[in-house]
């Protein structure tokens, strides 16, 4: 099998094609390791858990942002890629997918540092901006805050986020305007908003043009999320609540 990989260092960028043996169950990450260990040790990509929980290896694979460790090469080579997302500007750039070859590129919308590694500073800056921590002053708790299983289920939808940034790289709005705080940061904010233990007024924090209101509901975020987190639903609910608050004030 072949992999066509985006390379970048210094100010030079190009694509490199590698021939890699194919094993049953082989993932894109396995293939990248094969190259680094046997063909070209200068190839760089982030990795850690290899089990789709740490969020290190989000990249653009056959023009879809996803985790390299969770992506099998077989369906991609056989033209049976089931991932379908709404087309956006960043996907126009770079080389096209070739037949019987997997195209691997860095995650869009973030500056490339080297090869498949992007600078995630902006992504985490937006995350931090949402004050993503429970506000509590209890120092030595004697017992837990009680929560119903139903409350937990709703929260889990959002706490499952692994901050891999795949959604950020898949969001057409971020592609047009990097000021948009992006799906992950907003989903995180919503997660704290609905936490019954937290009493901060949260929604106002993103009640501005590039917060809740910039989303166009392309829903690429939910489609590419390896944990099926639905930022689009969080954003819709947050807007509805804010509008309701406004209406109540007007009345």
């Amino acid at each position: 099998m072949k992999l066509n990989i985006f390379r970048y260092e210094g100010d030079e960028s190009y694509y490199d094609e590698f021939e890699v043996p194919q094993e049953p169950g082989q993932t894109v990450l396995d293939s990248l390791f094969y190259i680094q260990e046997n063909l070209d040790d200068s190839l760089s990509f982030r990795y850690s858990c290899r089990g789709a929980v740490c969020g290190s290896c989000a990249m653009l694979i056959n023009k879809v942002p996803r985790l390299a460790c969770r992506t099998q090469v077989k369906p991609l080579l056989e033209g049976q890629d089931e991932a379908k997302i709404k087309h956006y500007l960043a996907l126009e750039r770079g080389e096209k997918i070739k037949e019987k070859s997997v195209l691997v590129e860095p995650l869009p919308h973030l500056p490339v540092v080297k090869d498949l590694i992007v600078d995630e500073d902006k992504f985490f800056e937006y995350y931090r901006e949402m004050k993503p921590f429970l506000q509590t002053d209890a120092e030595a708790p004697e017992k837990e805050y009680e929560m119903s299983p139903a409350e937990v289920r709703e929260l889990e939808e959002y706490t499952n986020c692994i901050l891999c940034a795949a959604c950020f790289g898949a969001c057409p709005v971020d592609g047009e305007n990097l000021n948009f705080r992006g799906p992950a940061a907003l989903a995180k904010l919503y997660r704290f908003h609905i936490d019954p233990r937290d009493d901060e007024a949260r929604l106002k924090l993103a009640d501005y043009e590039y917060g809740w209101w910039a989303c166009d509901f392309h829903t690429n975020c939910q489609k590419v999320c390896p944990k099926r987190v639905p930022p689009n639903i969080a954003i819709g609910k947050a807007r509805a609540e804010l509008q309701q608050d406004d209406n109540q004030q007007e009345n």
Partner: protein
Amino acid sequence: MEKEMLNEHEILVIGGGLTGLRAALEALRSGRDVAVISKVHPLRSHSVAAQGGINAALGNTPDRGEDHWEDHAFDTVKGSDYLADQDAVEILCKKAPEAVLELEHMGTVFSRFENGKIAQRPFGGAGFPRTCYAADRTGHNLLHTLYEQSLLGKIKFYDEYFVTSLIEDDGKCAGCIALNIREGTLQAFSGKVILATGGFGRIYNRSTNALINTGDGAFLAYDIGAALEDMEFIQFHPTTLFDSNILMTEGARGEGGYLRDSEGERFMKDYAPEAMELAPRDIVARAIMTVVNKGRGIEDEYVHLDLTHLGAEKIKERLPGIRQIALDFAGVDPIEEPIPVQPGQHYSMGGISVNTDCETEVPGLYAAGECACVSTHGANRLGGNSLLETVVFGKIAGKKASEEVRGQKADKSSFSAAREKDRNLINSITEKKQGILYSDVLKELRETMFQHFGVFREGEEMREGLNKIKLLKEKFAGVYVESDSKKFNQALIRTLELRNMLLISEVLALGAIAREESRGSHYRTDFKERRDEKYLKHTVVKKEEAGPELEYSTVNLGRFEVKEREY
């Protein structure tokens, strides 16, 4: 040009997983200037992969009455095959409820019973449903919580820095040298050091561990004179996904899952008739290997973890993560069919020798979590106790290191000398034009470790294994990296990791060969019995001029009398 600048802090935490973050938070709360140095972004640490849960005697389970920390301690000591230090176990279990409640108050969304309390599930080797959980993503939830909390204060994060040396100054640990992975520069850091670098599972070719678990902290500590303890005790988790060896939580059995052989038999009845699938991990792992070796495995490789009788609803609610992993990595839906599983390396019970204040023998150097050995796990760790150890002892390490922070400045010449030594080492690797690939040595090492120091061990085979390790160490001198790239030179990082792994493997081998008994995870086919009179002791290995030197230290016994282990 590398800057001669010194990054000065009062406390340096090396490692950004649960232990490291908990230690850093505690140092911050003690008013210290603290930095976290990690070779990956903290959220990419291996803690994130922990699934099943965290033990605490909360006694939340409806209609089950009260639970007591003493019972938790007894289960832990018995599970350890009596090698755990009972004073350390007492701290672990006594502090467990407050540790879990604190995490809950920090924001962790634990799963709940109908009555709103934190849910608890049965786990292996435990006499009570004591394992608190957040579905089967407990580590992920805890790590995100502690990272979130760490944003509240002024912790300085050095993400993607690989520590190459610790600095010894006047007999004390005074800081470290680290390679900025992004830029390729070596930088100096001063401060007391807390090692929280996790385990070294990747010396094995079948491991549940993240690829970054290469035992860097154990190497660093050993290298400046701290002792390594009980390194031969390696936990093999019974249920890892066939081939990829991704963890399939013990919680799957805690929720009622069965293990079946090729005939569909629940074979655990022959190995632990009372506890069945919920016997401790060492016992279940050996049972599976025995079944496969007797020809009752499937494809001679694995057994089945059967959840089909639990029903779709329970699987989706309690075990959604492992269902997703089984779907993604094995194409199997546990609702419909059994999961193919085999034992794989999972945890390092041993580590950097520390007292119950997390102090090593080197002043100014502390260690906690999986990289350390207090010892709370002895010869076999119970599921749900490792997450607990990270937060309980991470906190202790942070607190202890915050006491008596020295005002005097470290001698800068010791930093310059260490940096020059590390620069020379790196240059010797990258300036060679040809040689041996690190990946070839690594592959051979991993195969050697699994083959010679695996679930079943035998003297002659292990001695052969040690010889192989020594040959690989010689080969390492010839390893070269072709890329001269400064940015993200991962081949270089992986070569430096390999150096650490080779040393750890050698220490592990020495301990395993010398321990002529079977205890917990260390099972010898040539010495099948536990021999308390000779080996109810900790193995301690230190660096001497001629190489690693092995001795033994006493086990701190206590309220629980040493007995035969039956399940």
